[in-house]
Each structure stands twice: as C-alpha cells, then as structure tokens.
C-alpha cells in the first residue's frame, strides 16, 4: 500500500500520485435521515486495526476515486476497484 497502488486504470503507481480521502464504508445518508445518522457519517469512524477500505484518489493519474481494501496493520493491499463502479453495484 504505502509504496505502490495498483490503479485499475493506470496499473501500479507510486503512492505519491494518490491522495487519501478516508473511510469508504460510509454511505451518505438520505437528506431526511436522523441527526445521529448524519453525525455518524461525518464524524464516526470504525478505524479498524486490520482489514479496512478507504477511498484513494489517483490525483496524479486518471483522477478516479478508488476503493482500496487493505490491512492497516500489515499494509497489505487486498483489492483496488473504481469507486464509481462499486457505488453503482459494479465489480467490487
């Protein structure tokens, strides 16, 4: 993870080309959702010690947001997928 990311569009690229946005498990609540749901979305984080998914943007490449599944303890990357495809129920 921390050295290279295999971008599904650009191939393995150095970490410096990417920017981390944060936890990718969070779904933006509906406008009418509860205050608690909105608070949880914006502020609360599972922050697991182990497998985690994050949004990384390939800012120095294709500019796509990627869903990066990786281990926060070992830094192993388990999978990388395009975020829009994941959001639309495509290949996860």
């Amino acid at each position, binding site marked *: 993870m*921390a*050295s290279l990311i295999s971008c599904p569009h650009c191939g393995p690229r150095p970490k410096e080309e990417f920017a981390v946005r944060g936890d990718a498990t969070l779904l933006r609540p509906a*406008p009418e959702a509860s205050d608690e749901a909105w608070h949880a*979305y914006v502020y609360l984080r599972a922050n697991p010690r182990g497998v985690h998914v994050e949004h990384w943007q390939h800012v120095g490449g294709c500019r796509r947001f990627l869903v990066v599944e990786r281990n926060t303890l070992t830094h192993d990357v388990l999978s990388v997928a395009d975020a*829009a495809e994941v*959001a639309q129920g495509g290949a996860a």
Partner: protein
Amino acid sequence: MSAHRLLTGGLIDRGKPLSFTFDGRRHSGFAGDTLASALLADGVSLMGRSFKYHRPRGVMTAGSAEPNALVTVGGGTRREPNLRATMVELHETLTAVSQNRWPSLATDFGALNDRLSALLSAGFYYKTFMWPSAFWEKLYEPLIRRAAGLGRATLKRDPDAYEKAWAFCDLLVIGAGPAGLMAALTAGRAGLRVILADEDFRLGGWLLSETRLIDGRPAHDFAAILVEELAALPNVTLLPRSTVFGWYDDNVFGAVERVQKHLPIPSDKQPVERIWRIVAKRALMATGAEERPLVFGGNDRPGVMMAGAALTYAARYGVAVGKRVAVVTASDSGRQTAAALARRGVEVVALIDARTASAQASPMPEGARTLTGAHVVDTLGRLSVEGLVTVRAGFEERLDCDAVAMAGGWNPRVHLACQHGAKPVWSDVHQAFLPPDVGPDFQAAGAAAGLSTLAEALGDGVRKATAVVADLGRSAPTVPLPEIDAEEAASGAAASPVWLMPGARSKAFVDFQNDVHAGDLALALREGFGHAEHAKRYTTNAMATDQGKLSGVNASGLLAAMKGLSPAEVGITTYRPFYTPVSFGALAGTARDEEAVPHRLSPLDGWAKAQGAMFVEAGLWHRPAYFPRPGEKDWRASVDREVRTVRAAVGLCDVSTLGKIELFGPDAAEFLNRLYCNPMLRLPVGKARYGLMLREDGMVFDDGTVSRLGHQHYLITTTTAMAAKVMSHLEHAAQVLWPALQVRFASVSEQWAQMSLAGPKARQVLQAVVEDDLSAEAVPPLAAQAVTLRGGLRGRLFRISFSGELAYELAVPAGHGRAVAEAIMAAGRAHGICPYGLEALNVLRIEKGHVTHAELDGRTTPDDVGLGHMLARQKPDFIGKRLSERYGLTAADRGQLVGLVPVDRQRMIRAGAHLLREGAKPSTLNDQGHVTSACYSPTLGHPIALALLKSGRERLGERVLVWDRLHKEEFLAEVVSPVFVDPDNRKIEPKEPA
C-alpha cells in the same frame, strides 16, 4: 614500507600511492585502501574518542558497523562529520580529523568523565541537575550539550547535487558476498532482471578476506571472475557503493548509491549520491553476518578489534593490525581466524579460548600459545593495547601483545527483514538471532540466514535464487559449486556464547560508542529497566550511530544471562530504517532552494514582468503584488495609486490563477445545485452567479462564480488556493456520492488567461478590443457570454466585479493572453489605465466588504461572514446542509463579519489583532474576536478593517478595543458595516456613462 604493511598481498594497488592527512599529520596509503586500513598500515591505532567518557578508541571493524573510528572528512562546505574510517575510500589529498576531543586526540580533557564514571552511571542525568531549576538551561544543559555530540556540522550550503531514481527488477540481491554473487549469477544466467547492490566499493564481501583457495585460485579472483560475468550480462545491474537502507511496503527497497563520494573533487555532471527506490518482485538478503564482540574488562582499548576485521585488514589490505596479535574467542571461528591470520603472515602470539573443551581444533600456528578455559579480565596499555591479563583456573597471567582480535561468534545481519515489525528469532542451534520468515518475496541467504561455512553460503545463494527463478516461471541453469581448499567442517551446534567474561577488572563494554558497559546494564536491571527496550533507552545501548550493530545482541544476551532467561525471552530491540545513516541531501534529491517545489506562472506572467510588477508567492504561483512607478517611495504609494486609478478610471489585473472547471451534461445543473449551498437550478443561460460551497460539516469550503454558458454547459471558478481541492471535491461527488448523475467536467484552469478590467472607464476600454456590443443592455451585470475580439479571437466575457466597480473578466486562450493584455493596455492608455496587483485587489475588496481566505478560514459559516441569506434551506439537499444546522454553528454569539474604523483615524489596524470590550481585562474569556483583514483605504483616506466579532452585526456603532499585544498597541475602533465603499452598489452599473 610503513610499519604494519605486509610485504605482499592485499587488493591494493601498490603502484598507486596516495597521500592524505589525519589530524594534520601526513600519511600515505594505496589505491584500494580505506582510511582505516591506511592508518593502521601507518601504525595509527588511536582513531577516536568515545561519546560519554572520552575514552581513547581504535578501529573495531572493517565495515559499516564501526562504532569507534568516526572522523570528519573534508573541509569548507564539503566537510562531513561522523564518517566511519572503515568505509571511507582513500583518495589523494583526503583530509580527516578526529572528533569529540579537546585539545587533541591523544590528550583529551573530556577524559575526566572517565574518572567520574561511577557518578555518571546509566541514567544519572535523570537523578540530578534539578536544582535550582533556572540552572538547567543556563548551566547544566549547555555543559551537557557541549560535551555531547560527535562531529561538527557546518550547516553551510552544500555545493553538490543529488538525485533520485526508480529501478525495477525481478530479483534484488542485497550483498555481493559468496551467497549474493552466486544468487545473482544464477538468476542472471536465467535471464531475470537482477540488481546486485553492495555497500562496499569492491564487490565480493567476505571472499575478499578469505585466505583459502577456491577452484584453485585466490578467493578474490574467484569473486572477480563472477563479477566480470555479471557485469557482462545485460539483464544484471551492479550497484557497488550502494547501501540498501530500508525495506518498505510492496517490496520496495530504498538504497543510497555513493556515486562520487570517493573522488577528491566530484564532477558536476553527476550527483554525489543517488537514492534508488527499487521495486523488486523478489529480494534476497545476502547481507552476511556481523562478528560479535566479547565483553571483557578493557575490551575497548585501541588495538582490540573484531577478529574478522583483523583478517580483512591482513587479507584485503595487506596490513598486520599488530606485530604480536592475541586472539580471544569463545567459538571455533576464532580459531579459524587465528589460523587464517597466520597464513597471511600475521604473528599470532596467543589464542585464548574461553571454552574448556573446544569442539574442534584448527591447526595453530607455530609459536602461538593456546589457553583454553581462560578469560580475559583486563587489557594493559593506555592509548593502545600492550597486553592482556588472563585468568585460567584461578591463575592470573599477563600476556604481551599489541593487538587483540576477538571472536564472539556471528550475528546474522537480519535488520532489513525486521523493518516491518517481525522480530528476529533466537535459535538455540545457532546460538544467534536469525531472520524471521517474512514470506517468499524477501528471503535471507548465506550467513545472513545463519549458515556458517563458505560452502554453505555459496550453495545457499544458488539454491535460493533457483527457487526464485522457478517461482517467476523461468528455468534455472545449473550453476556448479566451486571447490574450496580445506573447507572447514560444518560446526553443527554452535557453542553457547560467553556474554560476559567473568572477573572483569575494568569496564567491560557492550556499546562502544555510547560507553555502555556491563555494569550499566546490571544497574538498569536493578532499577527495574530490565525490559530490552527499557534497558536500551535507560542506558542508551544500541542508540549510537551504529544503531547497535555490535551491541544489540550482546545486550540481550547479557540481560538474559542476568535474568536467568534465554535471549529468546528477552528479545531484541526494534530494527528500523536506516540500516546505515543516509544524508538529508540524498533523500531530498533535486528538491532544494528555489526549486524546492514547482513554480506556477500565469500566462500573463510575461506581461506583468514587462509592466514592472513586483511578485509575491501565492501557494505555488507567482503573482504580481503591485506595479511600482518611478518616484513612488514605497509599496503603499503604488497600491494607493492603483486603487485610486481603478476607482476613478480603469485598471487591469491578472486573475488567471483562479481555478476554472467546465461542466457538461444533462445533470450538470442538478450536480451544481447539490454542491453549492445557494440555488443553481434556475440560473439562466448567459448568466453568472456568485456561489458558496460548504464542506459536509457546514463550514464554508470555497467561493467563486458559476456561469451558465449553454443549456447543459457550465463554467465555475474557484479561489486560487482551493482550485485543486475543489476539483477533487467535485470528483468525489460525481464518482462516489452521485455516480448516477450525468455530468462530465474538466479543469480548464491553465487553458485560459483571465483578466479583470475594472473601473468607470472599463467599458470604453474593453469596447476598443471587443467586437461585440458591450452596452449595459447587451452585457448587463452578471452576464456571461462568448465574445469575439477585434481580429477574430474568441473569448469569454463575464460581468463580474470584485472591486465594486464597473468590471469585466475577460478570458482568452492562454497563449493569446499577453497580446490581449497589451492591446487592452494600449486601448486604455488614453483613459489612464494602470495594471494593478494583488495588494490593490485586496484593498478594493476590503473596501467592498468581500471575503477571502482571511475570513473563509475553514472555521466560518456563511452566516458568520454575512452570507447566511445564501443558504437555500428549501433545497432538498446540498453538501453541508444538515450539519450546518447544528447548535454550535448557529449560536448567536459566534463571530460575525463587521467593519472597523479606528476612532483615531491615523491608527493602522493590523490583521491578527484581537478585540475586547472597552475597559475589559484581556483574557481568553473576554476575547471578542479578531481582525481578519486590514488596510489603508485610499478611497476613504483612513485605515479600515474587517473583523469577526462576537454577535458583531448587533453591535454596529459600538466602540471596541483593538488589542495587539504583540505590537504593544491598543486603541479604540468603531464597529461599522463591512461594506465601506458604495454600499448600494451604484458603481457596478453607473447611471450616467462615465
């Protein structure tokens, strides 16, 4: 021939003598020498002083683990402290000086510390210097600081260049010793892309010190033949003088290549050092093993060194480290080394073996006494060793010698494999810490894997590389193993190490550089610091520049022995990058000085320069700050003139740095409606609108304009500073939040040169360069449309005003920017046009109460800055809507944007001043807010300011204290509306033509 140089042998070029100086004295050596070997050859054994007790020290090793022989090399801006003499390649005119001594290496007053060492026990500084407290900074600390430290850094500008590079390979072999060379050869012959890196300037590792024949020829010749074949293979890259210092994620390795450090004057065509980021499918750690010092009384006397180092000096450099060498050992390897030393013509006078019954006896040279079951309890001599005191079966004996070679066994160099957190594994069989299993991508080979014979190491290199070749889907060639003359038998179970020779009569050192002795570790244990990490931190063991390469394992062994545990239970402290120290310069590469970060220049940069602009950094951009004219005495005079010109006539300002994003698609309107907090759905084609974006937490993210250029075609602008962030924000929204929306967009920031033409004469000037009708009816305020310039160039025109004047922003393709600006200036000359810069722009906007990042600092809401009316709460959704409703963001006592005018109209208000109620005592509780922006208003003729004042909008007319304690100023100001000039916006579209 110098005192200690052997008559023959060694990989030095006796035809190339080199002269150099050490502490001002002239010495000579040969090409192929290191500084250490050349000094030893000249009979110099005293090379440094230790850190704490300033004890005299000599060289301990022949490699990168050297703790003692640290010197400062070079002079002027190339002066470099703390270089290991064992790693400095000798060159003509090299100058080296010793460190951490005063007045001289032989007579060092700091050695007084040694007399006081009982007082200066481990951690002594935690227990004293507490009274009186002011004395710490004034007396104790300066004394400690001066005494501490090693070499002196100049902190002068470095004249040399550095660079960084990526490299990719199938197999990275770290270390070009027996295992590494064979591995590289095996993989190289199989066609893999191989990188072979070694920290030494000559490839071969231990083969260069080996005294036996391989395939009937000297071992170093055998190595040279392998290197020659590797060098000829196009798929193999050799990196001598390159230390692999770190193992990072995804099998990326960091290495530093010392490209020109060995040359007297580096060429400016090459960097002096180069960082390699090596992406390796597989890697082999063939880093060999470090010999373990023996801990006995006086084991730090100059002349006492590692046995393997003594052999390296003899075999590789043709130097006898002494004329009468005593070998002290607790293992077979010491005996073998003693024999090898004798083979190379070094006189070994005694072999002291701590073991009572040695497992195996190598033949001893004639004249050497063998004392088994004996311990060394002290060494004799002052600045160099003159003898040993041994005890055997209770009988003491003194032995004359002028060098002591100690062989305490071998520690595999496991560091790199442990940098991801895995701990070395203690092996009872090897009696050593072995590398942990970190998976197939990175394996150890040879001595680094714990193998102890040359034959095993050679074979392991072939075997490990063959496995990699197969793993990567290639077929491996057969690489025959060479015949080794008189190979030693595999030793089987290693002897139990002797962690501390009993009966020490003087300090028995564990960490040589930091002066940690066995008694310090005992003290740490006694005081409760027995955990390996506590002991390290309390005693500073393994914290010196060698990072415990010699001391780490011994400390664990000693602690284990004292606790009655196995070293497995005590463990060892963490290995981290860097394997050996790496220069800032190498890691920084080409990024330095003016080129530390990229420069961004506007397409109008050339125009502004021609207009005589003074520039200012704005993020990566260089922007014109103001345009001085002859006779103006300071920047204020220029800015005041520029502001007055804009207010009275017309001015031209480069606004190309604004972020510009062009959007298309059927859902573009809906998309923008969700991104901005104000309504965007019904923006007509041909119109622009001011827009405010929030973060999801309800704070203002950025502001700018939204222009609808066509039914499904929009152009938005962002502030200069936030351009990249807004782009990313949009991409997040489009790709992650609402991927179903049909919208596409691209940044066009760099495609357009954009200039603001502002002032009552703006229309007349612009009409001279634009073909289209610019009348108020054709181009009303907030119009946004395509225009054709005279001559046919197509551009975009926006009726947007930041200054409050009649103003246009004209965008043209970037390459035409300068020509258009020049045409406008020519057209405006008759109207008194002037260029204006950021400073005037800032004054103009403060006068109009417009906000920038000084107000929109990520902590303000739309309401805070007086834009609460823009929040379209009736919209079903927009980013930031929900959380902007929280109590904390809507509380009435939040800071609100107001204007300030000093009661004494002469007082300049400074941004950053705080506000207090008149008569209130300054305190955090009483703090009423702060000044965000301030300037002198040439339009009003006095200073003005914008401020965020608690409940400010209710307080217009109140007098508040402007409190600038930093400048020792306080004075009253009146709270006024933040719009100082033309509050009714009459000037944007003057009724009468100007």
